[in-house]
């Protein structure tokens, strides 16, 4: 058991670097993949615009991670469980998160975590690396309950420095848990570059000490990502245990809208990374195969633009939650003292009250 070298099928222009897998002969999967990557990117553009105009809170852009999240989400079964960090909205949207709800979450509204479509998927983990252990708990439950399902969890390159992550790999190895760990190695943890996080050659090498397979994959190459994810999921379904996938990509954006990467990051590095980006690469492959052209591109952009705009409009029109909502879900049954506090909050929010806000 050892880590494998960088898995890649397509170069930056979408030209194969080795024989493609059999499934890659059919266009359908690629068209779907492309659709969702473009959707994710347009959602992202809209979210940043909303943030800049004060209609959304601090937002973590997904720019540059489309080639990881989309093939992973498309490889998962609906009854698998996703345990995300905070940069997996592309994956979540494919798994059923309505765009409106994605906006709601970043708009500072808990209803963004509530969509029934999310099934047993976890909400975003902001405290770095905590999700890795939750994923192991979920996978343990699957194993105890004899379910042929897998748990998929993401983490950033920075997050791999936390003990939680190593503890998760460790227990997943010991218990042969049906879990797939995916590192979005976008080279930066806010201002801290990858080499300051770990002296390991590849982050996938962290699998070695846990005794589990680790593989480094070109995260801008959807074929490589699908291959690696499928193999890892198969292992999980067959009871063979966990896999660590290091998806090598690049954060093409600021860390969040509250960040300014020009303070610490070289612009030439960013420019070079754009050359490797995943959407252009997939489009190149599809054009080369004769599956895609200008006209289809225009139609798709137009259709997605309409969808995203409509969801943004719906989001903006949505009335805020009632004040009592932040009490009502504290416990299955609200304790007496909270019933009293809830009444105070409701009264204060009424016209004439100390917390009344116009328009509420």
């Amino acid at each position: 058991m050892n880590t494998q070298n960088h898995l890649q099928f397509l170069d930056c222009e979408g030209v194969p670097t080795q024989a493609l897998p059999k499934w890659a002969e059919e266009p359908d999967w690629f068209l779907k993949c492309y659709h969702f990557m473009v959707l994710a990117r347009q959602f992202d553009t809209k979210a940043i615009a909303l943030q800049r105009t004060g209609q959304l809170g601090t937002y973590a852009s997904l720019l540059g991670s489309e080639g990881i999240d989309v093939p992973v989400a498309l490889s998962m079964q609906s009854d698998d469980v996703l345990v995300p960090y905070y940069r997996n909205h592309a994956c979540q949207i494919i798994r059923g998160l309505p765009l409106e709800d994605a906006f709601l979450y970043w708009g500072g509204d808990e209803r963004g975590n509530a969509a029934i479509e999310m099934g047993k998927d976890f909400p975003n983990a902001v405290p770095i690396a905590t999700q890795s252990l939750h994923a192991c708990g979920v996978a343990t439950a699957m194993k105890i309950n004899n379910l042929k399902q897998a748990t998929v969890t993401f983490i950033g390159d920075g997050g791999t420095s936390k003990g939680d992550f190593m503890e998760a790999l460790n227990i997943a190895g010991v218990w042969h848990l049906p879990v797939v760990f995916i590192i979005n190695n976008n080279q930066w943890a806010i201002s801290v570059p990858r080499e300051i996080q770990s002296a390991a050659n590849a982050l996938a090498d962290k699998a070695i000490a846990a005794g589990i397979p680790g593989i480094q994959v070109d995260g801008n190459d959807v074929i490589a990502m699908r291959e690696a994810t499928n193999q890892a999921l198969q292992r999980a379904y067959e009871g063979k245990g966990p896999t660590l996938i290091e998806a090598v990509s690049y954060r093409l954006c600021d860390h969040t809208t509250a960040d300014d990467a020009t303070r610490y990051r070289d612009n030439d590095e960013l420019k070079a990374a754009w050359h490797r980006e995943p959407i252009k690469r997939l489009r190149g492959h599809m054009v080369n195969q004769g599956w895609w052209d200008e006209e289809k591109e225009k139609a798709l952009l137009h259709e997605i633009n309409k969808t995203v705009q409509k969801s943004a409009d719906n989001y903006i029109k949505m009335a805020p939650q009632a004040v009592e909502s932040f009490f009502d879900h504290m416990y299955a049954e609200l304790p007496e003292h909270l019933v009293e506090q809830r009444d105070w909050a409701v009264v204060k929010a009424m016209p004439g009250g100390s917390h009344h806000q116009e328009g509420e």
Partner: protein
Amino acid sequence: MKHSVCLLEAVNLALASEMRRDDSIVLLGEDIGVNGGVFRATASLREEFGLKRVMDTPLAETMIAGLTVGMSTQGLKPVAEIQFMGFIFPALEHIICHAARMRNRTRSRLSCPMVIRAPFGGGIHAPEHHSESTETLLAHIPGLKVVIPSSPARAYGLLLAAMRDPDPVIFLEPKRIYRSVQQEIEDNGVELPIGKCFTLREGSDITLLSWGAMITETLEAAAALKEQGIHCEVIDVASISPLDTETILTSVRKTGRLVIIHEAPRNLGLGAEIAATVAEKALLELQAPIARVTGYDTVMPYFRLENHYLPNTQDIIDAVTQTLEFS
């Protein structure tokens, strides 16, 4: 030299000033070096003091706190930054099980002169886990000192004192007022005392006690009440551990009425400890029940509703009015 600075810049000024004076001070944390901190609290310190004294660490709070404990026992004075207080929890094992007790368990053979800085509190429309006020958790731990500045001058003076303290100090920075007020301060290396309250406004009718960002609303309320002829004494508790009970009791004995204001949840908030102390020591001098204006005992709501959670100036005015009406 005088500097016109906000609270955030005062933190930076104190760090730079003390690092020039004391070579044993080293800084460590996430994004504090090249980036100068996500809020810019350590801006330009890497340039002045170099890699060995301003260290960008991997992303791991347990590691940061554990290293800090180790370094502090060996003649260094580490000042660690936890990027947001909501991410201090992995560090607590080292802070509680080691930093807070090293002196005691070695009968002073070793000690942990170290500072852990963290921004805290709500009101800036931040994402989840970036807005809580959990200062009580730390104030509850024997062996720690917990200090919260509420003005640029107090940030400067108290952070100097924290860095010179022989024991571990948790220095919590109210980020809602990081940039709200500018103040002229002299970079003269003069510290302010830890373990003392600061009386910001004298008054004879009622005592208002608060700390951190809520000092802003408390002072606003006092100014508004003055228009109605009500004279509030406003005290910034500043060191929530150890607590300066003498200043608090003296004021309450004078006014006979007390309102405690904090952003943190009500249940077991520091207000409870202060109220208990006043009840123990000065119950018969009170002319009205002690009132508390606090956050609710709920999870901090996401930011769209956070203003409903945070106490505001009117809440303080209402509590003062009710306390004064009691007879």
